[in-house]
């Protein structure tokens, strides 16, 4: 009886520690599923290369540090630009040709791209993680009394929240976002209003990829930089996207953070289920609301 109680009421530091890890994971889930949602909304492409593009962001930071001596802060800008531009090339020369085809082709194409990109990096850097240190400014942490909060982790949560809110704001509340929403519904008509939709599609894909790359840079000091860092994460992120509702911006953000926290809590209360909890939730959500929690049923 006492033993059971011991499991059911964990000590506060363990609880908050897992909650923090959950929040950190959630921050990455949210940023990645947000990019996927934006891309899926406009391009109708399930971007399986998203994990590889996240990895590219981390590697970009690692490479410019080791070869050019450029540190963490400039990398937050450089990696999304470089990887986003690379994404736009992929869209322009490969993905563009399959918009009229079934989803399956987009999935195969982007999955193939992910395998190639990951393969190339594994060839040169092996599967082991490369260390990337926390910037000096964010070293150390705060003792909050009930737990110790590393500064870098607080920064990741803040940065991710700002990115997510900013993206949500642009899409839901600005004119640019209105173009995007309208083109998601009816690209032909938006084109007939004088908007260069193909260019908008390229830029949107580039933006989604840049968001993944930014997440990769943020992740580099926490998870290390390894060629497979994205493929480990992306499966969970897809579950998050499905739970939130394919293509739903708010669903991706709320779902990302919420599921990260739920996963963290599962680690405290029933660790054996922690890796499956999200998928169980996905199954339940699909049974009850097939379009996802925030999905629009058309």
């Amino acid at each position: 009886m006492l033993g059971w109680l011991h499991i059911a009421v964990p000590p506060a530091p363990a609880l908050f520690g897992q909650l923090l890890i959950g929040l950190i994971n959630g921050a990455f889930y949210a940023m990645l599923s947000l990019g996927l949602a934006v891309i899926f909304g406009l391009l109708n492409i399930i971007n399986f290369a998203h994990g590889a593009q996240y990895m590219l962001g981390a590697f970009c930071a690692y490479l410019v540090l080791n070869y050019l001596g450029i540190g963490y802060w400039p990398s937050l800008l450089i990696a999304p630009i470089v990887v986003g531009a690379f994404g736009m090339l992929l869209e322009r020369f490969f993905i563009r040709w399959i918009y009229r085809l079934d989803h399956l082709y987009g999935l195969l194409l982007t999955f193939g791209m992910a395998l190639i990109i990951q393969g190339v990096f594994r060839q040169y850097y092996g599967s082991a993680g490369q260390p990337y240190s926390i910037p000096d400014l964010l070293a150390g942490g705060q003792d909050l009394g009930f737990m110790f909060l590393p500064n870098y982790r607080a920064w990741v949560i803040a940065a991710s929240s700002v990115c997510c809110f900013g993206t949500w704001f642009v899409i839901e509340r600005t004119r640019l976002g209105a173009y995007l929403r309208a083109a998601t519904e009816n690209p032909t008509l938006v084109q007939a209003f004088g908007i260069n939709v193909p260019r908008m599609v390229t830029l949107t894909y580039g933006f989604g990829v840049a968001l993944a790359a930014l997440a990769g840079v943020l992740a580099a000091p926490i998870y290390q930089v390894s060629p497979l860092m994205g493929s480990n994460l992306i499966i969970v992120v897809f579950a998050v996207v499905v739970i939130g509702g394919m293509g739903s911006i708010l669903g991706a953000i709320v779902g990302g953070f919420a599921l990260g926290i739920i996963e963290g809590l599962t680690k405290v209360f029933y660790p054996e289920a922690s890796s499956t909890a999200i998928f169980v939730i996905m199954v339940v959500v699909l049974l009850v609301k097939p379009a996802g929690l925030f999905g629009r049923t058309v």
Partner: protein
Amino acid sequence: MRSAAAADALLEVHGLEAWYGESHVLHGVDFAVAAGEVATLLGRNGAGKTTTLKSIMGILPERRGTITFAGRAIIDLPAYRIARLGIAYCPEDRGVFASLTVEENLMLPPVIAPGGMPVDQIYDLFPNLLEHRMSQGTKLSGGEQQMLAIARILRTGARLLLLDEPTEGLAPVIVQQIGAAIVRLKQAGFTILLVEQNFRFAATVADRHYVVEHGRIVDMIPNERLEAETNKLHEYLGV
């Protein structure tokens, strides 16, 4: 059927052919619309009226022939460049966006030239829209959605409006309202190409009527001759 209008035509279509995949829908459409006039394309279902509008707008991939707008050949341009030359399109299904509010729908098409209708004048023309500005676009009634679809292309500075069956499925009182709006738009200097099946409505707003049959223009009837040629028109339209 290159009429007198051709001399000062704003829009001139010659030998236009178009395809939907395998099926050849337009077989050489010829007509012209003069600046400032309202012209209609009348014809039965499937005659090729909507296809003609889509071909002009450039949203149909397979088309051939000559389309000249304000002296410029436009058939090889992508749709967004055609729009930027001053042609605006109101589709048959109205194309009101569900994920945008009424106001966002109204403000969506970018301004392509100065001289568009100011927003307060648009609300004056369609007061219902002002009342529902913050509602979701598709929550409007059918008639209001039609008004919104017309309203949003007035702001942009486009000179030629392509309206695809703006009265379809609407109550008579709404049809009257739309008719009055079209007359006011003509007075305001817009050139309008209207697709219609309802020639009684067309007669109240248009200057000339082109009859479309099997993907060709088979006749042109000036509005003042419509009365005299009613029997012929009945035959064309099968009413």
